[in-house]
């Protein structure tokens, strides 16, 4: 399959490496040192069970690639306003796009520019990051869930699933991708906001009963917004998500890492979206509003030297 990956960071690099290794024609759209390193040395993926280097096409200009069968959209959400139109040269008559961003608004943002019919909303679970230019570390094996918005098992979706599975990526074709997105969003928006504002990792923070309650309150707010918007969501999601986090080994949420390192954060796609969507539909979101107010001044990061 001809695949272009917009944003070869932790998520895109990991998927791109696996898909290329399985024989697909993969092009990465990247910039800067990462681009130079991938062009020169190929893309190196360090997995829990070994590592490999694979040669992939890499460019900063989608026009050099032209129409593809599949686009994976994996940039950080705060780049959306600049990069969505850059996808146009990749779009042919049969091109599908899977959005694999955090938040619940990507498929609508892309659909508004590129037409909704090409877009398959998806979510990605893993812990992967760029170790150095051209080198991606996958700490937890990647898993993907995506699907058609109209909950059909389309041929294109089945084809894509096969390509992913053949590449060794655990892939689920969901009949209700919005539910999948929202389930991740409810957990992630609360976790990212609270651990960033507390500057404390989940393991330590969730030892405090007050923090557990606040975490659940924040999840309940996002759940109420999702339910009001008509998304079919399990009402015990806060409880289940808390159990899930309790069962994980010690880790640091990526927004907390970005905040701590002075990088831009996905606040607008997380707490910001809870508040925005809540306002649209008349659901109050006091915990997320608080988190947003104290994290907002840092959302663009601090200017980096050089």
């Amino acid at each position, binding site marked *: 399959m001809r695949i272009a990956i917009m944003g070869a960071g932790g998520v895109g690099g990991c998927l791109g490496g696996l898909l290329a290794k399985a024989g697909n024609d993969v092009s990465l759209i990247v910039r800067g040192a990462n681009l130079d390193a991938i062009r020169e040395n190929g893309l190196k993926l360090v997995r829990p069970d070994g590592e490999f280097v694979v040669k992939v096409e890499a460019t900063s200009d989608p026009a050099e690639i032209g129409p593809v069968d599949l686009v994976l959209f994996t940039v950080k959400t705060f780049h959306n306003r600049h990069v969505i139109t850059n996808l146009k040269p990749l779009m042919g008559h049969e091109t599908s796009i899977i959005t694999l961003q955090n938040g619940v608004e990507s498929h609508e943002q892309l659909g508004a520019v590129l037409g909704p019919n090409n877009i398959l909303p998806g979510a990605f679970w893993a812990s992967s990051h760029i170790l150095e230019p051209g080198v991606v570390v996958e700490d937890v094996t990647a898993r993907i869930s995506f699907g058609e918005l109209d909950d059909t098992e389309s041929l294109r979706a089945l084809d894509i699933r096969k390509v992913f599975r053949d590449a060794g990526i655990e892939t689920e074709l969901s009949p209700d991708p919005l539910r999948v997105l929202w389930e991740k969003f409810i957990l992630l928006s609360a976790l990212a906001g*609270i651990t960033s*504002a*507390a*500057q*404390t990792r989940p393991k*330590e*923070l969730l030892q*405090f009963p*007050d*923090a557990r*309650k*606040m975490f659940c309150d924040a999840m309940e707010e996002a759940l109420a917004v999702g339910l009001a918007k008509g998304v079919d969501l399990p009402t015990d999601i806060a409880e289940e998500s808390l159990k899930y986090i309790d069962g994980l080994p010690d880790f640091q949420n990526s927004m907390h890492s970005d905040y701590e390192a002075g990088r831009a954060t996905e606040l607008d796609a997380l707490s910001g979206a809870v508040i925005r969507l809540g306002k649209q539909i008349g659901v109050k979101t*006091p*915990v997320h*509003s*608080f988190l*947003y*107010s*104290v*994290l*907002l*001044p*840092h959302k663009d990061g601090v200017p980096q030297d050089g």
Partner: protein
Amino acid sequence: MRIAIMGAGGIGGCYGGLLARSGNDVTVIARGAHLAAIREKGLQLVQPDADFTVDVAATGDPSEVGPVDLVIFSVKGHQNPEAVPLIKPLVGDGTTVLTIQNGLGSAEELGKVYGAERVLPGSAFVISNIVSPGVVKQQSPVPRIAFGESNGDRSARATAIYETLSTAGIQAELSDDISRVLWSKMLYNSPANGMASAARLSPKDLIETPEGAKMFRSAIQEVADVGSASGVPFGEEDVQGAIDLITARPMGARGSMQADLEARRPLELEAMVGSVGRIGREVNVLTPIFDVLYTLLLPHIDGSPENR
């Protein structure tokens, strides 16, 4: 006047230095490198327009001092479990303990041990900190202090203390409503420290964002509502006054708790933030913002191990 300063940090050191310079018999109770430096070279106070060093008695052990006329109790609130019993040798029949700790519960806590009649509640209004062992820097132009008898009387002892403080160049206010003074400080100081600590930003930088301003106003309103329900009524103009105070702070000026958070020292979280929620529950006023602030800052309350 024979005076002991329990806790010669930024604020205690500032008042202690000024009181010693004006001829009082001042002993500061301090620890570690700060104590050693004061013993060796005296206490240096750097003011915006002056800089002097005074020879003061300094010790880590109050039993070396014996009963004094006045104890100024200026340690951080989280040190109370240690510091409250420690001043016992300083307190005799004629001793007054003037507490200038942040929060609202300090006089009551000291009163339980030493008798309510010996304790005067007060509040410090000065930005001052230790810049190096033995050296205290007063940042705000005029060091102020407000205090008074809990019942509002202008007692002879309160008047004597007032005169001693005034003579030392401290702008003192003998208040007939000290409870209101303490609450009024809480009204801006708790939101400023709590909100800015959670945002890792100066209070002024935060309040200048629209979202921050809105949240600040709600936080101040919570303190006002708890105060009002506790018998210290606050109106719209008081809330606005607190906002104006925070807005007027010099850009970058941090509250003391925020400075402690940044330096990973123990936090006065209970007195500054926890107390609002606690008193709120007693008087049936909801404090959602202060509850969240407490939750987010609680993991940092003890500071890092090397600073405890």
